[in-house]
């Protein structure tokens, strides 16, 4: 059973330090609750991202239209939908990674903890420091494993306790045991799954506030995918996670809430169709398009 609230423990297991205790292992069955109960529980949480009527343009072409929904703290929020519906565009808009693309502009607002991310005077580098990202294809630097993880903390001036920081990040990414004896080896000598976990370790080494994952397991084999998914459960205690995936089963396994994007039939622009807790999206979606997608009728 998944325990979400602080408990004291005298069952003889390792003493709990801290406010939250997580249990990893097989995905537990959700406690049967009504859809309204689940919605209420989520809405008790703080809102990390408040997306308000967001539209994204590349020059004249509109890629995303009128999207509005909140993303809650310490939950895993999945973004699903058919290919080309703007999922990647959406998630990259959250930490201003689309700025370099020529012709990019937005209408509407992206509020992070109440602050407009696209406000003038916002420091882009600071945004990315707080909102980290892991990409679809693993992109380790051509450096050693240690230096990959240590690079960003060094930039930030976190030089004391660097080795511990690197170890902690690698442990959190479930990679430590596999690499602890070869930290000086090149990161490119790792397998695909290991490289992706290295990229996750790299991202959490600087302890951001949010983790954005753009199809992190799509380039990986099933075993590596399973290990990445396991991480989601442990990481969400510390971070708010938004994950884009084209794999519906993955969303069902991993996410607390799910946003379904699709292409507006008329003008081929991506838009949010439905947003709810994962169980509702998959068991009793309200929109027929959502139902058609999750039952595999298209996409």
């Amino acid at each position, binding site marked *: 059973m998944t325990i979400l609230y602080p408990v004291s423990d005298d069952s003889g297991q390792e003493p709990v330090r801290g406010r939250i205790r997580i249990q990893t292992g097989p995905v537990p069955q959700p406690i049967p609750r009504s859809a309204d109960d689940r919605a209420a529980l989520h809405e008790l949480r703080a809102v990390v991202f408040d997306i308000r009527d967001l539209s994204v343009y590349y020059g004249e072409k509109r890629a995303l239209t009128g999207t509005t929904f909140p993303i809650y703290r310490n939950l895993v929020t999945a973004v699903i939908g058919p290919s080309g519906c703007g999922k990647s565009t959406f998630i990259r808009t959250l*930490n201003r*990674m689309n700025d370099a693309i*020529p012709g990019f502009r937005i209408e509407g607002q992206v509020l992070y903890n109440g602050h407009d991310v696209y406000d003038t005077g916002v420091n882009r*580098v*600071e945004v*990315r*420091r*707080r909102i*980290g*990202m892991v*990409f679809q*294809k693993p*992109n*380790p*630097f*051509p*450096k050693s494993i240690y230096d990959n993880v240590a*690079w*960003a903390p060094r*930039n*930030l001036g976190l030089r004391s306790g660097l080795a511990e920081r690197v170890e902690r990040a690698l442990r959190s990414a479930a990679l430590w045991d596999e690499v602890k004896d070869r930290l000086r080896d090149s990161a490119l000598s790792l397998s695909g799954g290991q490289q992706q976990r290295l*990229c996750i370790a*790299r*991202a959490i080494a*600087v302890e*951001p506030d949010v983790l954005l994952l753009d199809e992190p397991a799509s380039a990986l084999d099933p075993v590596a995918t399973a290990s990445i998914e396991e991480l989601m459960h442990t990481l969400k205690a510390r971070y708010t996670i938004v994950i884009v995936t084209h794999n519906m089963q993955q969303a069902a396994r991993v996410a607390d809430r799910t946003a379904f994007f699709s292409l507006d039939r008329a003008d081929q622009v991506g838009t949010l169709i439905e947003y709810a807790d994962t169980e509702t999206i998959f068991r009793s979606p309200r929109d027929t398009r959502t139902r058609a997608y999750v039952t595999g009728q298209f996409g």
Partner: protein
Amino acid sequence: MGSPLAFAGARGGARATRQLGDRLLFGLCALAALIVVATLGYLAYQMIDSASPAISRFGLGFLTHSTWAPEFGKFGVLDLIYGTVVSSLFALVIAGPLGIAIALYLSMIASPKVRAVIGPLVEMLAAIPSIILGFWGVLVLAPFLVHLEPGLHSVLGFIPLFGAPQPIGISMFAAGIVLTIMILPIVSALCRDLFLTVPEDLKDGAAALGATRWEVIRGVVLPSTVSGISAAMVLALGRALGEAIAVSLVIGDVTAKHISIFQPSETLAGRIANQFPGANTSLFVAALFYAGLVLLVIGLITSLAARAIAGRFDVQRSYARAVAQ
């Protein structure tokens, strides 16, 4: 259709044309390729052959002696090698970092609109023929240096490199500046092509970790392009080592090894350009061919070294595009 015989004949005729055409095409192409290889081979052979009177007379001592006295039949290129190396290194030391900085600007910093203007302008520096650079060097740069060198000497004169200046501005320094102008666009174009090959997702990964643009450059772009940058430097150095005309006009054609760059000097290529038209004995001509042979060897070595260092980056391709501008 006609009779089967006619049909077969028509087909046979068509096939014959096809075979003839294909064979002709292959023959022409192969012939062209053969001419290319033969040209290089014959060039090397010709140089050795024409230099052989001097080679048999001086042997390798040609490279270790400094005396260049055509009237007495004594030829040695040690001072010329010195001049070649010093002037080219001077140019590389300045044009190298400058070229890298410009390449970073064009590939990573400038907005696309600005890049479309500044990029071609920098490339056009490479289009200026060496004769025009040399001519400008003699008539504009040298007089200017006459004013500049005393000032530099008074400030930096404690370093032997910046010794007493000459009254006419013709010097190793002038040659170095002309060579710098000549190889700067080459370094810049090569490095710019190189930086553009750094995968976008690598730079994205660094930016997503909250790194500033300079940190992305220093941490990811530069380390991953070190071998390419080295190859670019080697190629640019090779270009400078082989430059004849521009250098010949501003360096003074003086056989001597001066520490001070404000003194006149001469390079291998410059010596050939300056003295070949007036070479009046066969030994003189052979000695100049020998100097040319040394230049050929230098050129071949730099090309081979650049290929070897560059790894996957096709540095010669960028070089061809940079110089044919």
